[in-house]
């Protein structure tokens, strides 16, 4: 047990310390002083003492939203120009996202990296996965099972069976819905409240290659090559919309369903009509939405197409458009994208790696290897960590 640390000649040291602190600080904080929330606050600026916004300037300086116009001036009365405005608001946004993220409160400041201890063995051929916020549900396509893994520590909890070709998943309506691909297409369903058992088959009227899956809250939508299926989860009724070509990924942005095809992305109405078509890269896969933009991984083009889908108020744009096409950053057969609040992760199937971007700036962060032969495919977020399915090594890994 620790003893109290002895402090000798404390007052003498304190005086020296005080002097040293003042001297050390003086090159920075020698200027205007005021009282804010009962604290005496000193700023490095010499032109803010009389400002009615002294305390707000202090807060902006303390939380790194501003550095002043130079080392000793804030220039409080100078008008703000639109270019400066861009800096102010993007710093504000990014600061909020960083400070308010769950990772911040858990002291998790490290960048993503691969650790074998953060992997969990599942059954053969895990390709897709999805979290309900507490557990991660993994489709083992080879084994035809679904694994339930606890997100906080990666412990394998349960396995559901008799789901041959288990593919993409969506957590909706208190259930887990899973496509059963590569055979007469099925939609499976799990009730997570129950004990593990064979999955329920909602319908076997999906096509031969059911791929992406999403929900608009009421229906389950499944992409399948040349058709899109809209399934009523209550009674299993299937409505089929034709006229598509290699439809693969599915996404719901809060207002519309979107589907990726070989080199396009289409925005759909609830009656299946195509509202808009935009060009993306070759062999577009499974996209992610970050609240404003859709990120589309393009397997053959080794690129990411970023589509502006909504405005900052969350309203759908009348005319969505391609914002940018991103390359490099280790892209090598990118197949699936996921969002964690701050970053976009994309899996590189051939590259045996994942690539990360900052969502607000579209800037690349890093590429991280998931080890040779891992063939990372599906990706999701549990609200705190990213999870990736390693189809080549029958594991899931947490970043």
């Amino acid at each position, binding site marked *: 047990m620790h003893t109290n640390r002895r402090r000798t000649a404390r007052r003498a040291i304190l005086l020296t310390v005080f002097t040293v602190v003042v001297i050390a600080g003086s090159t920075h904080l020698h200027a205007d002083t005021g009282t804010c929330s009962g604290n005496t606050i000193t700023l490095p600026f010499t032109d803010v003492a009389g400002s009615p916004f002294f305390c707000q300037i202090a807060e902006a300086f303390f939380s790194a939203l501003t550095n002043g116009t130079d080392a000793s001036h804030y220039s409080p009365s100078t008008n*703000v*120009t*639109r*270019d*400066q*405005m*861009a800096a102010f*608001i*993007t710093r*504000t*946004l990014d600061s909020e*996202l960083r400070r308010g993220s769950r990772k911040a409160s858990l002291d998790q400041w490290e960048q993503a990296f691969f650790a074998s201890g953060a992997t969990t063995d599942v059954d053969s051929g895990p*390709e897709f996965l*999805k*979290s309900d*916020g*507490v557990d991660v549900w993994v489709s083992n396509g080879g084994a035809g099972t679904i694994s339930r893994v606890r997100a906080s520590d990666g412990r394998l909890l349960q396995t559901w069976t008799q789901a041959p070709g288990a593919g993409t998943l969506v957590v*909706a*309506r*208190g*259930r887990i819905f899973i496509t059963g691909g590569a055979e007469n297409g099925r939609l499976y369903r799990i009730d*997570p*409240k129950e004990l593990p058992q064979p999955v329920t088959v909602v319908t076997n009227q999906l096509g*031969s*290659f059911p791929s992406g899956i999403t*929900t608009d*809250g009421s229906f389950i939508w499944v992409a399948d090559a040349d058709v899109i299926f809209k399934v009523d989860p*209550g009674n299993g009724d299937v409505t089929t919309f034709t006229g598509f070509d*290699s439809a693969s990924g599915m996404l*719901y942005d*809060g207002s519309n369903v979107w589907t990726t095809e*070989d080199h396009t992305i289409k925005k759909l109405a609830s009656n299946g009509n195509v509202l808009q078509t935009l*060009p993306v890269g*070759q*062999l577009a896969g499974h996209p992610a*939405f970050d*609240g*404003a*933009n859709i990120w589309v991984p393009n397997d*053959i*083009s080794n690129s990411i197409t970023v589509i502006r889908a909504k405005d*900052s*108020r*969350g309203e759908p744009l009348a005319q969505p458009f391609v914002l*940018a*096409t*991103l390359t490099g950053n280790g892209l090598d057969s990118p197949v699936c994208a996921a*969002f964690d*609040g701050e970053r976009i992760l994309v899996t590189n199937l051939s590259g045996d790696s994942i690539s990360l971007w900052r*969502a*607000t*700036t*579209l800037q*690349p962060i890093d590429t991280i290897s998931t080890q040779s032969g891992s063939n990372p*495919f599906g990706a*999701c*977020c549990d*609200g*705190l960590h990213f999870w990736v399915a390693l*189809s080549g090594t029958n594991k899931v890994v947490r970043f």
Partner: protein
Amino acid sequence: MNRGRIIDRAMVLSIVLALMAAGSSRLRADSGTCSGQMIALPFMDVAANPFFCDIAEAYFCGLTNGTSSSTYSPSSIVTRDQMAAFITRTQDSAIRRMNRRAALGQWTQGVFAGGAMTDVDTFPYLVKSDGVDIWVASAATSTVSRVRASDGHFIESWTGASGARGVLVARGRIYVTGGSTPGHLYRFDPSQAAGDVVTVADLEPYPDSLTTDGFFIWTACNGSTFSNGGSICRINPTNGNVTKFSGFVSPNGILYDGSNIWMIDLPASVLYKLNTNGTIAQSITVGATPYYPAFDGTNIWVPNKNNNSVTVVRVKDSVGAPLASAFVLTTLTGNGLDNPICASFDGQRILVTNNSGDGVSLWKATDLSPLGAFSAPSGSHPYGACFDGVNFWITLQGTNKLARF
């Protein structure tokens, strides 16, 4: 996995060229390097600007659209009305991106579905979450049920909470109000095996909702006649001492905004702000038969059952300090309101249960804009509501269920 697609290399090349041409009509303008990456913007007036990368970020995440399709006008002075647009977009973007459901890829507003409902004990009243489980008070069975939030699995019930109505998660315990004359404050330890609750104190008749200021437990007590003699009880949880504050008709809703206790006096149609000694600091007139309010960090939202309205009251200023004088911002109507009972906040939206309308109504909290009404099953009679960090949870009195929304 067989994706079943045929790749035509000539087609690829022509598509790439087409993309370059198509893209160029939009993004032919200024370019720059940001964090080592080439960035192209549609604006033609920002190329050499020291804030080029900040303008790029503001454009990418929708905080600005420029002054025209090809100009950003970087040297123009920002006016206050433009400022309002910039900061509200910034705030809304942050709130939306930080949403836990965004990270889970769940962009729906919410839905009532049979599979997302859990049977609970008879006549569920109010409900609260600890972030992992949902706790529901059921008046008829005098029990408190525990449901796992992630999957809706019914875990267990605590018993002996006579007439259980209100629930509070605080101090490592679950506090419950219940009973008639006298009323009771109950408590139990959720880390122990389920069993009987413990009675902390006797209260005034018909205690309803409850809250804490960090130390005391405060309960709204309807009173035995529901038309006079109602009161507020303040309980010291360490020794069970009760202090009663009278002078109210029939309190039902109560909350703490971080600075003050606020309570609803139903027959008086008044929202009261209380001092720590229980005296009235301010009274605000709201609508007819107000019930259980919610706080969003700045404003209190009061559902007015018989007016089919929601009164929004500004109680804090922009830095989070209590206003010397709170005031009504507006009264919201429409949006499916039909005997609204209980309000709840999820960081972004306010939800209100519609007891007769058999559904819920939602608003965006920052700008009070309506997001629509959503139906629960007919005859379900939604009553209490809370948020667990990911989903709303609604008690359905008509069908004795707890529904995830």
